[in-house]
C-alpha cells in the first residue's frame, strides 16, 4: 500500500504545480512583510516558533501521508487571531504566509541536517491551505474584532471561524485526493473518500485546537501558546503510536510472508510481487484503502498454507498444480490466518483464492487468483513479449477460471507498469 519513497525526480506535474504555487506565495508573503515590516513582532515570533516545533514533530500516517498537526493548529491559530490579551491583532494575510513559510522551513532544517529530506509536496499543501484560509479570513478580522470587543458577541464569531476552517480543510482534502489519484492511479472519488477517512479525526482535533488557540490568546496572551502546546502533544503522541503500529504491522506481515520463500516453498519474491500486482489491480478496480489493505495482507499470505503441508510442493503452488492440492493449501492458509482472531476477512479471501468465477468468490480472491497466475507464468521477468503471452493465456481461461474484468484491469496495469520495470 505504501509506495516506495519517491525521489526528487519522481514528482509528477500536479505536485510540481503545487510546489511552484507554494513557492510563489512564499516569495510574495516574505517580500511584502520585508517591505512593510512585521506587525506585532513578538506574537509573530511566538507563533512562528510553534509552527517550527510542529514541523519538527511531523509524523507519517498510514498510506505514507505526512502530517504536522501542531504546526497546522498553530497556523490556524495565528490566522484566526483577533487580539492578543485585548490588543487587536493587525497582521495581514501576507504576513501570515511569511510566518508560516519561515516557521515551516526552520522546522524542516533539523530533519534535513540528519539526512531526511522534506516532502516538498506535503509542505506545499500545508502552506497553501494556510495561505488560503489567511486570504479568506484576515480581511474579516477587523469587523469580527469589533464584534467581540464592543458587544462581546463570541458565538457568531466562532461560527464564522469554524465554517472557514471547515472549508479550508475540505479544500486541503480535495487537493490531497487529486494528488493521490494521480500518484497511485486510483479513481478520484475513491481517493476523496480515503483522504476524508484519514483526515477527519486528526482534522477535527487540529481545527478545535486552532480555534482554541485563537480564543486562548484573547484571555491568556502569549501564555496560551505554552498552555495549548502540551494538550495537542497528547493527541500527537497517540497518533504517532497508532501510525507506528500500523507501519510495523504491515512490515511484519510482509517480512513473515517471506518465510515461504526462505523455506523453499515458493519462488523468491513471489509473495511480494503478487501482493504488489494485486494492490495495483485492486486500485484500478476502485477498491478503497481498507479493502486494499486486506487485499495486500491476503496476497502476501496466500501461500502460507504450504507451511502446514507435510511435503511442500516443489516450486510452490503454481497454475500447474493439481486444483485439489491448491485448494487444500488455500484452506490450510486460511486456518493459519484465522488463528489470529482478527483477520477473519483476510482468511476468507485466502480460503477462496482458488475458486472458479462461477462459485462467486469475493473480488479480492479473484484478483489474487489472476495476479498469482500471472506471476507463475512470468516468474518476476519484465519481458514484454512474455507478459503478452501470459496475459493471452489468462484471457483464454477468463470467464471460467478467471474473472474477465480482473484480467482486463490487470492487462491495463501491466501495460502501464512494464516499462518502469517495477514488477
Amino acid at each position, binding site marked *: 500500500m505504501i509506495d516506495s519513497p519517491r525521489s526528487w525526480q519522481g514528482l509528477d506535474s500536479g505536485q510540481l504545480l503545487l510546489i511552484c504555487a507554494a513557492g510563489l506565495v512564499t516569495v510574495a508573503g516574505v517580500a511584502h512583510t520585508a517591505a512593510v515590516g512585521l506587525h506585532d513582532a513578538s506574537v509573530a515570533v511566538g507563533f512562528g516558533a510553534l509552527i517550527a516545533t510542529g514541523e519538527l514533530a511531523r509524523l507519517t500516517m498510514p498510506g505514507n501521508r505526512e502530517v504536522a498537526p501542531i504546526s497546522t493548529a498553530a497556523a490556524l491559530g495565528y490566522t484566526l487571531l483577533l487580539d492578543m*490579551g*485585548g490588543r487587536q491583532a493587525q497582521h495581514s494575510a501576507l504576513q501570515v504566509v511569511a510566518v508560516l513559510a519561515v516557521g515551516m522551513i526552520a522546522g524542516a532544517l533539523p530533519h534535513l541536517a540528519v539526512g531526511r529530506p522534506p516532502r516538498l509536496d506535503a509542505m506545499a499543501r500545508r502552506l497553501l491551505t494556510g495561505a488560503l484560509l489567511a486570504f479568506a479570513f484576515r480581511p474579516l478580522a477587523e469587523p469580527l474584532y469589533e464584534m467581540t470587543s464592543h458587544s462581546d458577541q*463570541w*458565538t457568531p464569531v*466562532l461560527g464564522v471561524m469554524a465554517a472557514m476552517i471547515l472549508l479550508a480543510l475540505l479544500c486541503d482534502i480535495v487537493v490531497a485526493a487529486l494528488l493521490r489519484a494521480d500518484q497511485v492511479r486510483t479513481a478520484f472519488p475513491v481517493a476523496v473518500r480515503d483522504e476524508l477517512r484519514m483526515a477527519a*479525526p*486528526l482534522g*477535527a*482535533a487540529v481545527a*478545535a*485546537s486552532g*480555534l*482554541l488557540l485563537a*480564543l*486562548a490568546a*484573547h*484571555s*491568556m*496572551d502569549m*501564555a*496560551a501558546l505554552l*498552555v495549548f502546546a*502540551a*494538550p*495537542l*502533544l*497528547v*493527541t500527537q*503522541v*497517540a497518533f504517532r*503510536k*497508532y501510525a*507506528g*503500529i*500500523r507501519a*510495523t*504491522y504491515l*512490515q*511484519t*506481515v*510482509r*517480512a*513473515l510472508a*517471506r*518465510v515461504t520463500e*526462505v*523455506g*523453499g516453498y515458493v519462488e523468491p519474491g513471489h509473495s511480494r510481487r503478487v501482493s504488489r500486482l494485486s494492490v495495483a489491480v485492486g486500485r484500478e478496480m476502485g477498491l478503497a484503502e481498507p479493502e486494499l489493505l486486506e487485499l495486500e495482507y491476503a496476497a502476501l499470505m496466500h501461500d*502460507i498454507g504450504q*507451511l*502446514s*503441508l*507435510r511435503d511442500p510442493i516443489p516450486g510452490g503452488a503454481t497454475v500447474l498444480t493439481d486444483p485439489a492440492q491448491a485448494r487444500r493449501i488455500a484452506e*490450510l492458509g486460511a486456518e*493459519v490466518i484465522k*488463528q*489470529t*482472531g*482478527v*483477520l477473519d476477512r483476510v482468511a476468507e479471501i485466502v480460503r477462496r483464492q482458488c475458486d472458479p468465477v462461477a462459485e462467486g468468490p469475493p473480488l479480492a480472491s479473484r484478483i489474487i487468483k489472476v495476479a498469482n497466475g500471472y506471476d507463475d507464468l512470468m516468474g518476476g521477468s519484465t519481458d514484454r513479449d512474455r507478459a503478452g503471452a501470459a496475459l493471452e493465456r489468462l484471457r483464454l481461461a477468463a470467464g471460467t477460471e478467471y474473472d474477465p474484468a480482473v484480467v482486463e484491469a490487470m492487462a491495463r496495469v501491466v501495460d502501464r507498469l512494464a516499462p518502469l520495470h517495477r514488477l
Partner: protein
Amino acid sequence: MRGLPWYAKLYLTAVIAVAFGLLGHGLAVGRFERVDWSTLLVLALLFLVCESVPTLLNVKQAAISVSFSAALAAVVLVGPPGAALVGMTAVFSVRPGLALTKRLFNGAQFTICGYAAGEVFVRLGGVAGVPEIENFEELILPFAGAAAVYVPLNFALIAVMLSLAAQVDRVPVRGMVQLLASYLGYATFGLLIAGLWATVQSISAVLVLLPLFVARWAFGQYLAQQRSYDATIAALCQAVETKDYYTRGHCTRVSLASTMIAEEIGMGPERLRAIRYAGMLHDVGKLGVPTKVLQKEGPLTEEEYAAIQLHPMRGLEIVRGIDFLDEAFAGIMHHHERHDGTGYPMGLAGDEIPEFARIIAVADAFDSMTSDRSYRGARPVPVAIEELRKAAGTQFDPVMVAAFVKAVERDGWEAPRKVPVPPGEEAETVVIKDHDDPTTPIQVVSER
C-alpha cells in the same frame, strides 16, 4: 461489598466518611453560599461525560479517565466545595457493570481530591471564581499547586484501595511515571477550560474536549491495532512451527520467558516490547534449514551442522525489514552464542553477546527442556532450572540465569501440556533432535 477483605471495607467506609465530613464541614461554615450553581452544573456534566468514557490503560484494574481536567477546572471556577461536589458526581457515571462499591469509592475519593486541591489553590493565593482576563498569569502558580496535590492524592487513595483489595500485588511504578506525564497534559487542559471560561463559557469545554476525545480515539485505535498485531505475529510464528509438531507453542513461551527475565533485570517498556517480539521470532530462520537436516538422527556432518548454524542469520534476514529496535535483531541473530565463546554464528563471548541474545538463550533452552520431545519426555521445572544453573558461566550468562530463576520461583512457570501422540496427518512423526536442548548437544563428526 462482598468478597472484599474486612480492612478494605473499613478503608472504603473511612474514605466515604471523610468525603461526607468535608462536604458537611463546607456546608457548616457556609462555603456553598458563594458557589455559582450554573457553572457548577456545566462542570459536573462535563466531568460526568469524561468519567463515563475512561481511557483504558494497560494497568488492568485502573481505568484512568480524562475527567481530571474537568475536576481541576472546577477547582478554579467554583472553589473547593464546588470541586468536591463535581467529584462526587462520579457516582453516577455511565459505565455499565461498574459495581456500586466502586462507584461509591470513586465518588468519595474524587470528592476528597477536589476539596483538598481546592484548599491548596486558595491557600496559594488563588481566587475561586471565573478568572478575569488580566489575571491569568496569577492563576498559574496556585493551579500548579492544586494539580500537584490532586494527582498524588488520587493515586495514593486508589493504590491503597487496590492493594487492600489484593487486586494487584505490585503497583507498576514505571507505568505510573508515564501516567504522571499524561496527567500533566490533562492538567493543562483544565487550565485552558478555566482560562477560557470568561470568553466563551461552556463552548470552551467543547473545544477543549474535542482534541481530547480524538486523542482518546487514536489511543484506542492504537491499542486495538497493538492487540491485533500481537495476535497476528503469534499466529504466524505458530504457522512456522507447525512443521515440527513437538515445538508447537515454543515461540510464545520463549517470548514469555524472555519477558520475565527482562522485567526482572528492570528493562523499560520499550525494550520489553522489543524482546517480546524478538523472543517470538527467534526461530523463524529454522524454516530455511532443510527438513532432513533438522530431522536427522545421530551425529551431523560438519556441512549439516553449518546449515543449522545458519538459522539465526536466516531469521535475521527475514525480519530485517521490520521497524524493531536494533537490539531485537541482535537478539535474534546471536541467540545461540555461548557465554564461553563457543557458540554460533560469530563465537562471541561474555559481554560481547548482546543483552537480548543472552536473555533469549536462557529462555530458549529452558522451554526446550521443559517441553516434550519425541526422544524424551518433558523435564520437570526444578530439573531444568538445575541444568540452567549448571550451565551458567559456560553456556549462559549467570546474571540472566539468576534473574530467570528468581522470576520463576516467584511467578511460577506453566509448562506446556503433555503432547499427545501426534496424529500423523499433518505433522511430522520423525525423530527431531532439538538444537535448543542443552542436555542433548548436537554431535558433529568431522568428515575425513
